[in-house]
């Protein structure tokens, strides 16, 4: 990894602080454009940066060569040694000056049109299908991490860092939102790319509702809120080896999703339920979701060529 030699970026505001480091809005003083700077503190040993970090960064750089329209550009990565035990890794991303949260809040009543929602969903799933086909999971999808340009182009931010963070961060307790977390993460079972599809389902519902679908205040509360909609899963579906018992939850039945998302059409509701499926192995994949009848319906007039 290159050292930070020419570094034309000046931070102008802090926009995120997680367990692993800090995110800044910054200006590239050469082009005048904004960038997003992510500083990650990584523990080092006598061999320098951990192999896993180097590998993750190499993967992100490889992804970059595809120039995918629905993920933010990674412009630069460099390392600054801090001490014998710690190195600061700085990732420089293209900055997009609007997120989905703001975009939804700004939409005048009664909210986004069904065409607009479909277009946003298609782009979101294209970005995810691209990441997943490269074995990258996002793991923290939420409206703040989904960026929307002034031209309506969706770009995913904040992906592929999960491994860099989880292996090497000096853990500090942070409050992270639970609302987009799938049951397998809440139950601390094993998880993989289907986590992102669950989050996408929550966001799909939110595009119609203009408020989040499941607003839990703790892991247990979040699970309870999920079961009130999808029903308590069968005993056989409950993952083995998790500490939380199924008996903690009332035996509620699934309710029609249209009780919660009344504006959604029939195919949309079907797709949504395939995303909000308890068992991650039965949950629809990003690629299959893109093939779903929902995206083949009449109402989409603008059949996007590449997105």
């Amino acid at each position, binding site marked *: 990894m290159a050292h930070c030699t020419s570094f034309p970026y*000046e*931070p*102008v*505001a*802090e*926009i995120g602080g997680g367990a692993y480091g800090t995110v800044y*809005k910054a*200006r590239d*003083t050469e082009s*005048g*454009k*904004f960038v997003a700077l992510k500083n990650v503190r990584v523990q080092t040993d006598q061999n320098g940066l951990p192999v896993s970090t180097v590998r993750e960064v190499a993967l992100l750089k490889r992804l970059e060569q595809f120039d995918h329209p629905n993920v933010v550009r990674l412009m630069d990565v460099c390392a600054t040694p801090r001490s014998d035990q710690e190195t600061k890794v700085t990732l420089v991303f293209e900055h997009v*000056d*609007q*997120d989905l*949260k*703001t*975009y939804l*809040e*700004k939409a005048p009543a009664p909210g986004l049109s069904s065409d607009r929602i479909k277009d946003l969903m298609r782009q979101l799933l294209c970005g995810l299908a691209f990441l997943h086909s490269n074995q990258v999971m996002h793991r923290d999808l939420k409206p*703040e991490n989904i960026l*929307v*340009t*002034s*031209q309506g182009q969706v770009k995913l931010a904040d992906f592929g860092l999960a491994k860099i963070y989880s292996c090497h961060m000096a853990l500090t307790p942070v409050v992270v939102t639970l609302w987009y977390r799938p049951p397998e993460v809440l139950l601390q079972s094993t998880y993989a790319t289907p986590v992102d599809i669950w989050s996408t389902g929550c966001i799909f519902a939110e595009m119609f509702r203009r408020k989040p679908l499941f607003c839990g205040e703790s892991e247990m509360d979040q699970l309870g809120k999920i079961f009130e909609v999808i029903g308590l899963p069968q005993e056989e579906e409950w993952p083995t080896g998790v500490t939380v018992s199924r008996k903690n939850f009332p035996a509620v039945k699934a309710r029609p999703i249209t009780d919660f998302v009344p504006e959604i059409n029939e195919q949309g509701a079907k797709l949504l339920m395939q995303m909000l499926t308890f068992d991650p192995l039965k949950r629809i994949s990003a690629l299959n979701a893109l093939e779903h009848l929902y995206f083949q319906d009449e109402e989409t007039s603008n059949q996007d060529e590449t997105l």
Partner: protein
Amino acid sequence: MTMMTLQDDLTTAAAKGNTADVESLLRRGAAVNGVNRFGRTAVQVMMMGSWPVAQALLQHGADPNVADRSTRTTPLHDAARTGFVDMVRLLVAAQADPQARDNQSRLPVDLARENGHAEVVAFLETLK
């Protein structure tokens, strides 16, 4: 870790497009034209896609004509480059100067044109 001041909080809320926080910080006495620890005001760093944040700041007397201390970029340059036409209109209505030049001598309309934002170009050209 440096201590966050009210000014830092205000610029962070503005950059995140968090209108409710911007409003409550202003009520709690954050100076609308005060600078954060990077020497920038809220209007200079606000999320360009969030006209509600811009409106809250401008109604509280934010100066839309502060240029970046390194590049002389103004908020109108940023709005024009990123193509948010609502933001461009709002800034112009609040007396942002369409003739401001950055350190490469570019006008806001130049940046809109360079980035293919036809609607912004058309609007800025009506101001001449």
